[in-house]
């Protein structure tokens, strides 16, 4: 008999990274279909370029540094990144610049795990192509995408593929901003995409429930008072600070328990 020695537990939850990635991808399908319907071929072309650049960047890195060929997880995560970027980049973004930016962002992310590559791509795009809302997509019958986004959020929540507290709180703030007439419905949709897919990205956000709530409230408030072009920069700063926010709250909670 061969007895394998290992530390427990021996039962594992059936959730895994691949499932999280697939669920995120599925949640993007409705809004993506809507985008394809309302946009022209130029948008689809831009989508393909973004997708290719991100996949190539990932593949090159994995091949050069880890001697790994492309795999399912890599492809899915590249797809998700590129779809989200395509949903948010200004219409006048230069394709060549987009290609190199995507490449650079992926490489930076390999070294700094807590920096969301989507944010880096968006920051570069918005730095070079300062966009006002006219440069972005104007939504036809704008309540449909908003409805689709809320459905996606609920789907991710049920599938436990999202830090739901962060997205939920930020969506509430975005809706409050819309009702306070701080921006229009197009802006609300863009902010909601950011709330569901960028602000709550797993790797770059806090872990503890309390720090997630504080983070979401702060970002939520900032997102409705700051100019959209600078929002990504603020989130990036928080990405870097999140590890310290988490540790600080963990210490506070641990001290409270000791008392």
């Amino acid at each position, binding site marked *: 008999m061969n*007895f*394998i020695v290992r*530390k427990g537990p*021996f039962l594992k*939850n059936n959730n895994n990274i691949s*499932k999280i990635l697939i669920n995120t991808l599925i949640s993007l399908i409705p809004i993506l279909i809507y985008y394809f319907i309302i946009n022209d071929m130029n948008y689809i072309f831009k989508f393909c370029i973004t997708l290719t650049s991100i996949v190539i960047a990932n593949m090159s890195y994995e091949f050069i540094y880890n001697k790994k060929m492309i795999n399912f997880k890599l492809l899915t995560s590249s797809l998700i990144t590129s779809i989200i970027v395509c949903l948010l980049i200004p219409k006048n973004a230069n394709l060549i610049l987009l290609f190199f930016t995507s490449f650079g962002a992926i490489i930076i992310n390999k070294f700094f795990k807590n920096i969301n590559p989507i944010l880096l791509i968006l920051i570069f795009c918005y730095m070079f192509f300062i966009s006002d809302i006219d440069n972005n997509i104007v939504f036809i019958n704008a309540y449909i995408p908003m409805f689709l986004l809320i459905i996606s959020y609920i789907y991710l929540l049920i599938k436990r593929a999202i830090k739901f507290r962060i997205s939920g709180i930020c969506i509430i703030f975005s809706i409050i901003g819309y009702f306070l007439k701080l921006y229009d419905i197009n802006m609300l949709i863009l902010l909601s995409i950011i709330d569901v897919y960028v602000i709550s990205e797993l790797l770059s956000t806090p872990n503890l*429930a309390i720090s997630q709530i504080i983070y979401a409230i702060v970002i939520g408030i900032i997102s409705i008072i700051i100019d959209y072009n600078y929002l990504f920069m603020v989130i990036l700063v928080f990405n870097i600070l999140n590890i310290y926010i988490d540790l600080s709250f*963990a210490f506070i909670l641990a001290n409270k328990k000791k008392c």
Partner: protein
Amino acid sequence: MIRGTKIENHKNISIKDNIKKIDNSDYIYIPLKTYNNTNCTCNVKAGDYVYKGQVIALSNDKYKMPIHSSVSGKVSGIIEENNSEEKFKVVVIENDYLEKEKKKIGSKNIINNYTIDEAIKLIHENGVVGLGGQCFPTYYKYNTELKINTLIINAVESEPFLTCDFTLLKEKTSEILETIDALMEIFKIEKCIIAIKNYNKQSMNNLIEYIGSYPQIEIKYVKDIYPIGFERSLIKHLLNISYNKYSMEKGIIVNNISTVYSIYKALKFKKPTLDRIITVSGDGINNPQNVKVKYGTKIKNIIESIGGYSSDKVFLIIHGVMRGNSISTDENYITKDVTGITVLKETQSIQDECINCGKCANICPVRLSPVLIMNNQKYNIIINKLNSNKCVECGLCSYICPSKINLKEIVMNCKKEVK
């Protein structure tokens, strides 16, 4: 709110058959260690004849717990064993299968009329310890000057696969209720709650039938979430009370079903418990079932008696699949802390990089942050501040992790570092 999650319990596979009594060990191995791995002073030497139930050692700690021989026979030797953590001695007894006892003591018809001191003495002398896995001396819980208001009988059995307490409750319902009634009367306890998971209607019917005669005993069904059977979680869930070191501080005593049955034997027959029901389950054996075995029986004998292994490469797990570890040999033996043996076929789980999802931090029943402990494991000051020593080793962090990282192992290593 109690943190935890529903885990597939795999309990039905071991409750199909009746309890099988296994008594085929030519040699019995009694380790000379008790609660918290305290070493003991041995009263016997090689060549001595020992009777069934004879005290062969006494623990060296303040509890002075006796260790009994589970069979009669000759002491064939005292060997020294090493496990990864400590060295201890093991008394090896050659079983003569005669079941000789030094003196025959009759049974007591009514066990309710002991005085507190008499009851504590019997529980102590007969070596009754917590049989849920911790082996904490039971007499110590009752030997308190604090007023005990509530007795909780823990029949929850959180660990997947294990059904030994459930089976015992089903088979010995009247004895267990009689003991609870006696404990309540002797120690003037006002309230008793039997906490149970409602996963098998049959056992409930049996219990409900008998409980009518004991109006002071209440059955409470608890949520089917892991780790609700842990003492702290159970008290919090049932009474919404937290405590610092011992539950007695708040006037609560928690006893496991098997422990109550041991108390029954101590009070009724003035005899120590020398055997117990354990669950032998999992997809790595041919006939999963509950078995009654003597302490000191080798695992190998047990598995062979119920049809052997179903695979050549298995995990042999003691103490449950969530809390336990797999061992390298089936030459190990049954001790009081073993509630079950689970044999699982080999499975591969590929570990990924942490995706920082925070699920471990949001599920931990003692509100630790395993991901932060893992990220800072090199820094002793930080892991100390993160209370890693409070880990209850339930294994939920590793269970929930989508990256399949064994966070429990990491936290336990850190716990050792900061001790």
